[in-house]
């Protein structure tokens, strides 16, 4: 309810400008460090200008690599969304089922991906298949756990109300438990969305297929690091980072669409 005076307008302006200012400051600091390095160490840290140059030169390569890695990330993430939801529905049915399956889910999560990858390469061959499965394995666990928790945390009174109305088990699940679990589901999705691009790049690094110029960002990482192309490496990292942002933004948008009308986390009075 604060009046739209100059004070609040100034603070809103400051809030919008400060992140930009921080970014500019960091780039300047980066330049300063580059200039401070002695000539024989300068190759260790490319200057912002060199990174920008690498972007210009390798643009098409980076773009096609990002598309390749991105499709692995999307496929793996999508697979994780569907399978984690289905498994969470099953796990939510009883505590006995959860007790008998959770330990093995943990096993899946605890096994290092770096060891699983070569096995996958032998089973399904290098390329999109392996990358998809590795992404899936990395995203899956937090998504199952969150959705399951949501499905079993339904307000006790609401469940009683449904039973009072003689709701069938299916009605109880799909009209009550699933919508009530949506906030949890989206929390899992957000965690998964930050992991998916990383999973795909790691997958591509270990199990990618570079034949016919189909290599993804992981493959580019191998190439540029072996050639000490520091500017290009930094550009590759930036593309990976950007991909992560796109993923998270997508999930945040979906969650806004599903929840903003009714869920308290979107109520205006809280902000």
């Amino acid at each position, binding site marked *: 309810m604060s009046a739209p005076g100059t004070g609040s307008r100034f603070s809103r302006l400051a809030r919008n400008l400060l992140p930009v200012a921080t970014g500019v400051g960091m780039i300047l600091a980066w330049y300063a460090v580059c200039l401070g390095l002695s000539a024989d160490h300068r190759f260790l840290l490319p200057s912002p200008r060199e990174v920008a140059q690498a972007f210009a030169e390798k643009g098409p390569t980076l773009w096609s690599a990002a598309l390749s890695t991105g499709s692995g990330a999307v496929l793996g993430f999508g697979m994780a969304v569907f399978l984690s939801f289905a498994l969470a529905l099953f796990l939510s049915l009883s505590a006995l089922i959860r007790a008998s399956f959770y330990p093995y889910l943990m096993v899946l999560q605890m096994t290092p991906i770096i060891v699983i990858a070569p096995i996958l390469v032998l089973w399904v061959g290098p390329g999109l298949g392996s990358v998809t499965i590795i992404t899936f394995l990395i995203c899956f666990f937090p998504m199952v756990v969150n959705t399951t928790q949501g499905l079993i945390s339904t307000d006790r009174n609401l469940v009683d109300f449904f039973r009072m109305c*003689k709701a069938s088990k299916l009605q109880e699940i799909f009209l009550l438990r699933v919508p009530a679990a949506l906030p949890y589901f989206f929390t899992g999705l957000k965690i998964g969305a930050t992991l998916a691009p990383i999973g795909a790049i790691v997958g591509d690094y270990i199990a990618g297929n570079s034949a016919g110029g189909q290599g993804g960002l992981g493959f580019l990482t191998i190439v540029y690091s072996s050639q000490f192309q520091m500017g290009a490496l930094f550009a590759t990292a930036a593309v990976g980072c950007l991909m992560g942002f796109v993923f998270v933004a997508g999930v945040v948008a979906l969650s806004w669409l599903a929840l903003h009308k009714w869920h308290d986390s979107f109520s205006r009075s809280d902000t």
Partner: protein
Amino acid sequence: MREAQTPIVELKGVEKRYGDGPLVLDNISFSAERGDFVTLIGPSGCGKSTILRLISGLNPVSAGSIVVDGMEPSKAVERLAFVFQEPTLLPWLTVSQNVEVPMRLHGTQAATRTETARRSLELVRLADRMDYYPRQLSGGQKMRVSIARALSVSPRIMLLDEPFGALDEMTRDHLNEELLAIRQQLAWTAFFVTHSVAEAVFLSNRILVFSANPGRLHDEIRVDFPYPRTEETRESEPYQRLVAEVSKILRSVERLKA
């Protein structure tokens, strides 16, 4: 109102314990005639909410029997409506969709549902809030939606478990009057749990006082003020005398527990 001789709800020697737990209810017997407004009052732990859950068929009795409109409780579900302590609305549905939930679960046609929901909401004077979400309503409004939802199935029996306990006194008094006004039109039998003696005396024609550990029926008080009751009833001397009297009984019951 008393055209039928058979009681609409009858409890005979009802006992209840959960699992291996202690006895919650011990040998409860009472019956209600059509149109009765029965209030259950007593110290916490006397099992008054449990009685509502048993009548609703939500939980089975451990011993004894309950007959609801000539049937066992779990078969009489379509004659009953339950109003919980909290509004228990689904936050992702609009007010009108919330009122439709019981009908949706029973497979009522969409057109009928919408029309019935609108009429129920008119009864609680919230027809202008049909498309709001629960979080946009006040506590009292949410409770009225909950009551509209209960009314939407045209129940013969309303079970109300301390529905106004969380509201401020002004809102509570107001909703009490509204509840009686609606009952005047629809003539259901009510079982109402409360901690408030004033509320009990204002609403009911019969007050059942329970003692705790285990829950036993201690006393019954008849309230003969004619309906419709209004603000004037509350200000009248006989009303206030009766409130004092029931409070005294309740205090003696609580001492019994200690």
